[in-house]
């Protein structure tokens, strides 16, 4: 009824969300065209954190450039490192020891949980509930402690290096991880009660930001964003790397296509990751944690592309080598970039309050998008 009315009213208003805005999780600028409170168009403006990482990497050696990638998608820094290390190893044809593989996978999955925990809290905060944020950080803090023990840093690890991992696991690692699993299993249900079942949360997320399967593919969405729309795109299943093909876990797929199913995918993924960790934690093979590699790495001439599944989706690392110690050109295909491009499509017709829910369930990390 009111639609016809609003078509005549020139009540269009353009408002900026970002670069400094609590719900953009960083410095993303969204120029939103509103009619009343209904979104007509969302135009993302990027580059507020464009750090020219790709250019920088052209002058860093193969050992050095990995550390910058921890700063790209800093919430899954291990997985970023992993992707780069894999690409270098592929080029060098290094076979890494089993122990390193298992450690890498363990770290990846811990990172994934940490990332999803943070997302969970931050998203709840976006929707206006503050307490979940604090609760989720408690678990995250446990993971960071584990990481810190072994990798020596809390966020930007730089632990996975070409040829394996940088250091041996901390002696307490297994014990702490088991404690964490226990804690997680204990607390996660409480959170489901606090957030997932909550009527307000559900009504804020259901039927919001609908992205159909076809659209998700066309927009190149990956990761939980696409899996919430029923696309199976888990690199760990489709193109298994390391030892993922020997592990038992499910690719979580929801077909609701809305924010709530994206939410569910992430929540369920945490449980999957926990189960992966449980499978591995007692079976870490003995052996070296690093393959013998030369001090200076030189990739042969050619092009190498690897992809890994970060907490946000598919990270592609594309290295063009000219046979020097530094890459000739390096390109990171970041999941957030493609996922963001679907935002306008998703947001159309929603309310401005929905935008927050959409942004929340897209789980954007802006430096990952801008690089």
């Amino acid at each position, binding site marked *: 009824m009111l639609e016809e009315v609003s078509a005549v009213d020139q009540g269009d*208003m353009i*408002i900026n969300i970002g670069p*400094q805005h609590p719900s953009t999780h960083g410095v993303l600028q969204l120029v939103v065209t509103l009619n009343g409170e209904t979104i007509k168009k969302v135009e993302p403006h990027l580059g507020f954190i464009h750090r020219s990482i790709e250019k920088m990497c052209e002058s860093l050696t193969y050992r050095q450039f990995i550390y910058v990638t921890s700063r790209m998608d800093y919430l899954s820094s291990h997985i970023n490192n992993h992707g780069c290390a894999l690409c270098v190893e592929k080029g060098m044809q290094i076979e890494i020891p089993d122990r390193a593989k298992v450690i890498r996978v363990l770290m990846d999955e811990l990172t994934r949980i940490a990332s999803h925990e943070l997302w969970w809290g931050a998203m709840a905060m976006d929707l206006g509930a503050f307490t979940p944020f604090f609760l989720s950080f408690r678990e995250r803090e446990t993971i960071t402690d584990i990481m810190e023990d072994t990798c020596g840093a809390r966020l930007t690890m730089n632990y996975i290096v070409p040829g394996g991992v940088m250091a041996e696991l901390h002696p307490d690692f297994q014990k702490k991880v088991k404690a964490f699993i226990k804690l997680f299993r204990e607390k996660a249900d409480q959170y489901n009660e606090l957030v997932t079942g909550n009527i307000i949360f559900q009504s804020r997320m259901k039927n919001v930001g609908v992205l159909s399967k076809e659209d998700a593919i066309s927009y190149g969405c990956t990761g939980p964003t696409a899996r919430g729309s029923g696309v199976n795109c888990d690199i760990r299943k489709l193109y298994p790397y390391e030892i993922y093909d020997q592990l038992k876990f499910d690719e979580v797929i929801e077909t609701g296509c809305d924010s709530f199913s994206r939410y569910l995918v992430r929540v369920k993924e945490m449980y999957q990751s926990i189960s992966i960790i449980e499978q591995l934690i007692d079976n870490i093979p003995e052996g070296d944690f690093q393959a013998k590699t030369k001090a200076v790495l030189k990739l042969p001439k050619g092009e190498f592309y690897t992809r890994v599944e970060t907490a946000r989706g598919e990270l592609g690392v594309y290295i063009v080598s000219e046979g020097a110690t530094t890459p000739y050109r390096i390109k990171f295909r970041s999941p957030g970039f493609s996922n963001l491009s679907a935002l306008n499509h998703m947001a159309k017709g929603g309310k401005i309050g929905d935008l927050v829910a959409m942004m929340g369930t897209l789980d954007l990390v802006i430096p990952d998008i801008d690089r």
Partner: protein
Amino acid sequence: MGSASMIVLIISAIVFAVGGILVSKLLFKKHNSVVKGEAYECGVPTIGKSWVQFNVGYYLFALIFLIFDVELVFLYPWAVVAKSVGWLALVEIIIFMFILFVGFLYAHKKGALKWM
């Protein structure tokens, strides 16, 4: 103390508010810049006019509210005596409310109570 207290309260409120603003003006030495005065919009200059035209949808809320507000006003004297008047009061108010409820349903039906 009666209505005098109202005056006292108004005066003290004004003293409090205006006094607070004045004190802060006095204590703070100002230095200005042009950008400072500009409207805040997440750190970028405002796009377009700050004034925006709203949708009629908003206005309908105020409108329906106004009607119900008047109804509410009539309910107050009714409520005070309802107990003593008895069933008659209930009957009258049911008629009264019913008529308005019809209007309410109409508004609902027409979608006037949808926020745009």
